[in-house]
């Protein structure tokens, strides 16, 4: 078996006395979609921030594509082929939708013209080509989420981290994004997806990691995880879990 694309080894992150992550370990194989779930405050976004270089882990190691990346800065991590979206979307508001994606595409070229061509491709892939010239700040939330994905794709990553791309979306928009995630998977890209909607995460994930209070509670296939008593109790409350 080949080495995993991403390996998180006993990663902990403390904020003062708060243990946002404690000894979290898991691996992500090339081409898979890993679902990362857990109640609010479980440490999912903190873990994303550790992996993408925004917070150095307090303890533990992170290996990506054969390199140790904990301690590297976010731009270095991105250049190694990892890109993320943000739970609270961060459009470059005063730039056009196209220019937002151009910024991502410029990672691989110095030519703005080439980056524009690439950016148009990526906008088409997420279905935003008609909105190319609108200012990004004026997009409704559903399209902002898609823009985040297009911008991330433009950096040509091997691993994509999606932080609640379906948060705040209506059913039809969520369905669009599920289709998009599966489409990206078909292209052979690896993804880690944070999501609250259990139904959605079960549909798209090959494996699921469950965090609770900063620690890994369970890991397995969607079926294993959804029938895990500890997971059910964490999600539904201890007494409900005990009855189940």
């Amino acid at each position, binding site marked *: 078996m080949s080495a995993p694309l991403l390996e998180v080894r006993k990663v902990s992150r403390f904020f003062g006395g708060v243990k946002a992550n404690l000894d979290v370990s898991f691996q992500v194989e090339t081409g898979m979609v890993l679902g990362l779930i857990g109640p609010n405050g479980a440490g999912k976004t903190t873990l994303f921030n550790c992996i*993408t270089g*925004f917070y150095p882990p307090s303890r533990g190691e992170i290996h990506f594509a054969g390199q140790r990346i904990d301690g590297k*800065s*976010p*731009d270095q991590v*991105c*250049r190694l082929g990892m*890109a*993320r979206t*943000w739970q609270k979307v*961060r*459009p*470059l*508001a*005063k*730039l056009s939708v196209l*220019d937002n994606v*151009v*910024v*991502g595409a*410029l*990672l691989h*070229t*110095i*030519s*703005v013209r080439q*980056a524009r061509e690439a950016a148009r491709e990526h906008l088409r892939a997420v279905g935003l080509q008609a909105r190319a010239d609108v200012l990004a700040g004026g997009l409704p939330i559903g399209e902002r989420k898609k823009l985040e994905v297009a*911008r*991330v794709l433009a*950096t040509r990553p091997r691993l994509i981290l999606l932080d609640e791309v379906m948060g705040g979306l209506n059913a039809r928009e969520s369905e669009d994004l599920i289709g998009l995630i599966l489409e990206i998977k078909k292209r052979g890209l690896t993804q880690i997806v944070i999501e609250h909607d259990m139904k959605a995460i079960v549909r798209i994930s090959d494996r699921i990691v469950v965090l609770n209070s900063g620690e890994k509670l369970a890991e397995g296939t969607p079926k294993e995880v959804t029938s895990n008593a500890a997971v059910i109790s964490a999600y539904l409350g201890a007494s409900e879990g005990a009855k189940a």
Partner: protein
Amino acid sequence: MKRYLPLAALLAASLVIPLWVHSPYALHIFILLFIAVATGESWNVIGGYAGQYSVGHAAYYGLGAYGAFILLNKQIPPWFGVWVAVAISVVVALIIGSITFRLRGPYFVLASIAVAEIIRLGALSWKDLTNGAEGILVSDLPPLKLGAHVITDWNSKVPYYYMGLAMALLCILVNVAVKYSKLGYYLQAIREDQDAAHSLGIPLARTKNAGLVISAALTALAGSYAAFYIGFIEPQSAFGLDVSVQLVLICIIGGIGTVLGPMVGAVVLVLLSEALRANLIAQGLFKLGLDETSPTGLFLKENLAHAHVLIYGILVVVVILFMPDGLVGFAAARLRRRK
């Protein structure tokens, strides 16, 4: 390309103006305008595109001015000394940048002011080099020669006019080049959202420093030019906080982060401050029928010229309050609404 036609026409007009305009005062106003355009466009590179509101650009302006004058006193010809001065400010910019760019928002602004003040105090105290508060006077600039042929002996303002025009044009062209380059996209991404930019693979420190170096080099060039034109420098006029603020105001009034903004801001501010200084407002009121000998007339005649800084300040506040995107941003929004 069509949108650059008016600018080309403007350029053509500026090239022929000295053929008809001979008044030294009028040429003086144009030269002030070129300095304002050049410095405003210089600041725009780092303040406008990258959103790093440096209020310490007097550091580079003053280094350009002092560098060129000190080298001239050491018998180094201006045509060479200017570029040495520019190079010095680039080095200083790199040092200042690598310290202050760790800070964000208001902390960066304060740090930029502090660094410029430190350099001003240095210029004030290092008397052997800078002549301290007395400043440096350069009265006999060596004539510009090509071989044995004297091109100009600097008695007329016309050579300054064309040099100033060339400098302003250079700063405008650099702005255009930066704005539509990879660097420009990266600077604007940093302005819009530093974390998002970082996550898209943009090296923050290196990108900001690249922008600052370009900005500082152009500012220093304008500082050297202004020093040679005026013929006298002292720490306050070269390194003072009012110099830094002036650059920022040119961009805020005109429109930050646009190529056109600093040009518009420069025209408005230079004409406004000259009009106020020459008391044109009071004279205009007299022409409109206000009795010059009435108590009000006498009061205005006496005091309005002295209040020019106050009026200038009030107008600036009004523009900032009602047109937060500057005149260019305001006009663009109006045009969009009409469509």
